[in-house]
């Protein structure tokens, strides 16, 4: 019997944006090809042309409602470069604090609201209940901890930028507002609960990995390059640093000033996705597959740079060295270690009086025609590159977004997981959920990734190898 067919998973749920997965099965019902499609496009690179560069921090943050702060900061940094200024130390601190608020809320959102249903309720649990509502029902105390942790991150953003989503804060040359003492004290009082929630999450993922070690070893575990921004000590540099690309064996392949990114990163277009495929130029396409985001960063750095996160990182490295280094499931663990790191960094910054300084902005006329702003967004390295005319009007933009860097790796992961679980034509909902789970590990932001014209639906169809449409798997 011919079992060739095409499976479509659409939309990929519990991720940000519009994505879809298609899996082609051969006549034996085994996977012969799979694809992760991003189905949204918006056109920022074009419609921002002709506008004053100063508008960009406010406009480009609308690329994403989960990480607007990252876009605002990358944009503001590109604008600083056009002005040719070094912003005042307090302004830099305040931007970094805003950024930590962003990481805390985004990582908490991903773990508790989006990913935890798979881990706490199970891959194969009832899909109608496999969501945050189900988690609230089964684990009300834990769910509340997660909700409050995300809230804490959002409140840092609100204290600085006036609102939680699409705040108005970073501007070319600095920031809009100083932080007042009352808000500083209020924020400092929130760390106890935030640490407690983060450790609760860390315990969950460590237990889960301990109990599912074999699955983790087989789950989209592959060699790749890892990338992230690092400081001069090889610690994470989420706001500003050199970009490091490190091979699977731990050797550094490149470490460069972000403004030189075009020497190392190029992008391929595939006709079947609105998301381009960046690759490490010296290794070509598709060999130059690299991973960014929590797993990419933790596999690219030498140390965390904060005491509590360092303890967790030591444990992580042991687990990683036991054959899990390339396991896509390790993203969850890496993400929570970063969450801990961000809490520590935010607390250190808030305890230093510099944070309440009033020298927060430099004004200047543009002195450069080009500016590159690179930052580590929660999901990975984010690049804003602008070129302006002599009046400061945008002539050209290039945006490479975290999720884009991971596009090759996400496709690879889908393929590996589909091959692992779908055999002989047996297709169950729970198996398809694992395929989606591979994408979820990356915490993709498909709105971000398709700023070009941005939206990413995820769906799975099954086709025969000859391309004939066979079947669509539908969930309730």
């Amino acid at each position, binding site marked *: 019997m011919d079992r060739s067919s095409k499976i479509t998973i659409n939309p990929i749920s519990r991720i940000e944006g519009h994505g879809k997965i298609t899996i082609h099965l051969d006549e034996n019902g085994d996977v012969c090809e799979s694809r992760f499609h991003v189905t949204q496009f918006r056109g920022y690179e074009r419609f921002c042309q002709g506008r004053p560069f100063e508008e960009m921090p406010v406009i480009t943050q609308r690329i994403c409602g989960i990480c607007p702060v990252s876009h605002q900061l990358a944009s503001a940094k590109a604008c600083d470069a056009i002005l040719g200024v070094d912003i005042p130390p307090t302004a830099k601190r305040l931007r970094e604090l805003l950024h930590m608020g962003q990481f805390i809320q985004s990582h908490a959102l991903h773990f508790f609201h989006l990913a935890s249903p798979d881990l706490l309720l199970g891959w194969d649990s009832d899909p109608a209940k496999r969501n945050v509502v189900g988690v609230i029902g089964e684990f009300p105390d834990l769910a509340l901890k997660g909700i409050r942790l995300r809230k804490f991150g959002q409140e840092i953003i609100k204290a600085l930028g006036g609102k939680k989503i699409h705040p108005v804060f970073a501007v070319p040359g600095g920031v809009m507002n100083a932080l007042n003492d009352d808000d500083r004290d209020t924020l400092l009082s929130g760390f106890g609960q935030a640490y407690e929630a983060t450790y609760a999450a860390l315990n969950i993922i460590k237990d889960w990995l301990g109990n599912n070690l074999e699955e983790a070893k087989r789950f989209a575990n592959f060699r790749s390059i890892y990338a992230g921004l690092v400081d001069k000590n090889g610690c994470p540099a989420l706001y500003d640093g050199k970009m490091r690309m490190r091979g699977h064996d731990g050797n550094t392949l490149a470490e460069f000033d972000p403004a030189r990114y075009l020497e190392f990163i190029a992008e391929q277009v595939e006709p079947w996705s609105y998301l381009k495929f960046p690759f490490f130029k010296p290794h070509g396409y598709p060999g130059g597959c690299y991973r960014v985001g929590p797993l990419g960063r933790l596999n690219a750095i030498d140390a965390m740079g904060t005491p509590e996160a360092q303890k967790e990182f030591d444990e992580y490295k042991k687990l990683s060295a036991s054959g899990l280094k390339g396991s896509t499931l390790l993203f969850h663990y890496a993400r929570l270690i970063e969450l801990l790191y961000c809490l520590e960094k935010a607390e250190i910054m808030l305890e230093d009086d510099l944070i309440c300084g009033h020298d927060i902005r430099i004004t200047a006329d543009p002195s450069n025609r080009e500016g590159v702003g690179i930052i580590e967004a929660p999901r990975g390295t984010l690049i804003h590159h602008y070129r302006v005319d002599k009046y400061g009007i945008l002539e050209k933009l290039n945006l*490479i977004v975290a999720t884009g860097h991971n596009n090759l790796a996400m496709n690879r992961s889908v393929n590996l997981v589909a091959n692992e679980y779908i055999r002989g034509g047996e297709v169950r909902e729970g198996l398809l959920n694992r395929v989606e789970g591979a994408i979820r590990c990356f915490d993709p932001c498909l709105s971000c990734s398709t700023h070009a014209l941005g939206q990413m639906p995820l769906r799975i169809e099954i086709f025969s190898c000859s391309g004939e449409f066979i079947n669509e798997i539908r969930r309730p």
Partner: protein
Amino acid sequence: MKKPKLATVWCEACAGCHMSFLDLDEALVDILSRVELTVSPITDFKDYAFPQVDVGIVEGGVGNKENREVIEHLRQQCRFLIAWGDCAVFGGINTLRNWLPKDDVLRCAYVKTAGTVNGIIPAHEDIPQLLDKVLPVNAVVAVDGYIPGCPPAPEALAYCLKELLAGRLPVLPADMIHFD
């Protein structure tokens, strides 16, 4: 009494309105206990197979063929449709591309950007075609309620849902109406 059913979708948007919904924080637990959440980006329902629902909520404008199909289908399946956030209400920031030819916008992103090696414009049966312009939801289907804002305050959506649960047509108080 059976819980009222709710469906939420995002179309051409940034997810910020849904994030604002999650910003209800502790109050979210109460709201979610009083409704049955069906199709939504945070649940695992597939293929936008909306059951009959009492309230449908749309974030985002209508920018491609799939958006349009989803909205038309949701309209058929829901009693009360809310356009939620500036993109759904007005078309939003994405309408900045409406002044430009579609091909020009695509060519800029996929052919002209620095660093792109094989300039081709994606086109495939598995990705939806763009519409010529991004439209607000009410340019495609009838809308019963509007909550503007980029994003709307979390309290605004909570207020509307509570009014609907109480059997009243929501009228947003002035302090919940803003456009940024």
